[in-house]
């Protein structure tokens, strides 16, 4: 066990991925010499060389498109998009090609590509640098969309993503890059929870709190706060947003009878909407209250002075919990 920040855990995981497969390579803007804006790829070019860790020009569409071409010829690119909001120049390549090529070739090709995306707000950055676009990708069939909430998951999930034969959009909670925790860097991946499984983080009996990425820590804090009010919350880190591990969700909601979904992303059309629909359909007779959602308001990402009003926080989560118990 070693204590690592989330960003360092990703770095160690990427190192393992590069060691594990000679076809794996990293590409992105300033990922090599500079080691990435958030230092996630720090030192990797030095250790693996410029052929494995590639500094690209500023060209997101080109980065992802080139990665697809590399993958078609057997390579396993791990691409970095520097910030959430910069993924949109590459949106076409991701949605039109990356997501669809396997299906349209009737399984003749595989696209083992990871697209790493630092996402979410809370660091006083502004629009283009704080966004949560994951639902757009979860809405796109053919993509796996995952997100880690802590250093241990960061370390294993990035390796699992790199060894997946499907395209994986890997959303990294940028405001948690500096969070520290114990990480087991000795054990292999065999015993690790698969990347498409949800994890019950805190067991509870009264209400199911669903979350992922940056909101995992906040929801764990909410469970502690609610416990002092005598409420037992079950916190589930979804980890995989597409596909969703619905069985874990349903089992929990059938037990607790209440469900609140929390994400930083705008509520309208977010992951919470999909989850609420599925839970309502499958757990209808177990529900004591409608599935509630906590997320950002439906406005563009605001300037930093308004950020605290915009983002969901502990209070807004606890308020939703109160409301759920109000039914």
């Amino acid at each position, binding site marked *: 066990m070693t204590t690592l920040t989330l960003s360092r855990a990703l770095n160690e995981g990427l190192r393992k991925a590069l060691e594990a497969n000679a076809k794996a390579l990293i590409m992105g803007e300033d990922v090599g010499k500079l080691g990435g804006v958030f230092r996630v790829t720090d030192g990797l070019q030095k250790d693996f060389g410029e052929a494995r860790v590639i500094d690209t020009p*500023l060209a997101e569409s080109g980065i992802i498109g080139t990665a697809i071409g590399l993958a078609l010829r057997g390579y396993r690119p791990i691409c970095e998009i520097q910030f959430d909001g910069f993924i949109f120049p590459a949106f076409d390549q991701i949605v039109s090609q990356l997501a669809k090529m396997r299906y349209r070739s009737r399984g003749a090709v595989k696209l083992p590509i990871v697209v790493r995306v630092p996402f979410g707000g809370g660091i006083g950055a502004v629009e283009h640098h704080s966004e949560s676009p994951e639902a757009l990708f979860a809405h796109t069939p053919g993509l796996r969309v995952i997100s880690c909430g802590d250093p241990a998951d960061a370390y294993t999930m990035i390796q699992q993503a790199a060894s997946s034969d499907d395209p994986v959009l890997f959303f990294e909670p940028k405001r948690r890059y500096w969070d520290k925790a114990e990480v087991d860097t000795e054990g292999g991946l065999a015993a690790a929870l698969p990347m498409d499984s949800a994890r019950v983080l805190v067991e509870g009996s009264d209400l199911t709190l669903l979350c992922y990425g940056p909101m995992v820590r906040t929801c764990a804090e909410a469970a502690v706060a609610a416990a002092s009010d005598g409420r037992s919350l079950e916190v589930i880190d979804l980890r995989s947003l597409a596909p969703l591990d619905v069985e874990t969700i349903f089992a929990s909601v059938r037990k607790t009878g209440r469900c609140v979904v929390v994400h930083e992303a705008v509520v309208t059309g977010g992951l919470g909407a999909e989850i609420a629909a599925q839970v309502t359909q499958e757990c209808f007779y177990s529900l004591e209250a409608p599935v509630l959602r906590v997320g950002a308001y*439906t406005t563009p990402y605001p300037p930093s002075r308004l950020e605290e009003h915009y983002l969901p926080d502990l209070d807004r989560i606890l308020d939703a919990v109160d409301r759920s118990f109000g039914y």
Partner: protein
Amino acid sequence: MADPAGEDLAREDPAVLREYYRQMALIRAFELRAAEMYTRAKIGGYCHLNLGEEATVAGLTAALHAEDFLFATYREHGYALARGADPGRVMAELFGREAGLSRGRGGSMHLFDSQIRLMGGYGIVGGQVPLATGAAFALAYRGGPAPDAPAVMCLLGDATTNIGAFHESLNLAALWRLPVVYVIVNNQLGMGTPVEAAAAEPELWKRGCAYRMPGQRVDGNDVLAVRDAARAALDCARMERQPTLLETVSYRLRGHSVVDPARYRTAEETERLRREDPLPAFRHRLITAGVLDEETAAEIDSEADMAVAAAVDFADASPPPEGAALFDHVYATPAASMYRGLPGDPVAAPGPAAGPGPGSVGGPA
């Protein structure tokens, strides 16, 4: 290069030259102060400075007519100042306050002021290039060529020439003969990446050749060379509907943004930068040519400092936007069903105990 004997200066109106120096000194003082304010957490988000680009800024804006439109990048504080925006309102925008150019909603990267025809800074690299092209299309659509016809100037960084939107735009502008001048402000770095490591044609202005677009590279540290080249290009746009790709070469004196320590830069480079700093160079040039004396120069410098100090006070005195303002300006036409709960109000649907709330108006409950 700048003419050390001052012959080219002799042809200029001394008052105009002093005005260029005044602008450059103001930008320098403003940017140094902005960096300080950023480290003191008065400024949120990211903050990119024009330090080292003062001569380029003054030269380009000197070539613009008041009716011309300027599309900028996120590195645009200096352009707003040189186009005549009040330093206090610019600083207030950086501070995110109500007195800012966009009432604190745009911030450092998104300065916008239609009065001075500053059509925005843009935080997405290359985002402004097609937009500027469209604004030029609007001008061409409406009026014919004339010596005083308005034109568009579109700024972009060296690294921005590698993104697709740039190439799509150049093709459109050349094909449709639009009155636009694209200016590559080549400060030799895109974040930590030097031009040669990112561009297959590192003489960036030549990228216009693929679109049969004329272009030129000029010394971005020479305000007069920049101004004259930009003027000629704008004239071409006004009178011949011929777009141009102009490249100015200068050097970014500090990191990419205030938070970047620029460790990728060698000590020799840093030393060279100090020697080639365009501001003291221009000051020295004007003094040698007898356009300025030490005393007047010092006066201009201290006026710049005072203006910036006043700008900081002005910004500090202005309130931040209220939380409820979060919901303003999402749509031009108010939507009856749009959720406008106060921040802090729950977004989740209310339970019966909580009474009617956001959920009842069909918002994102």
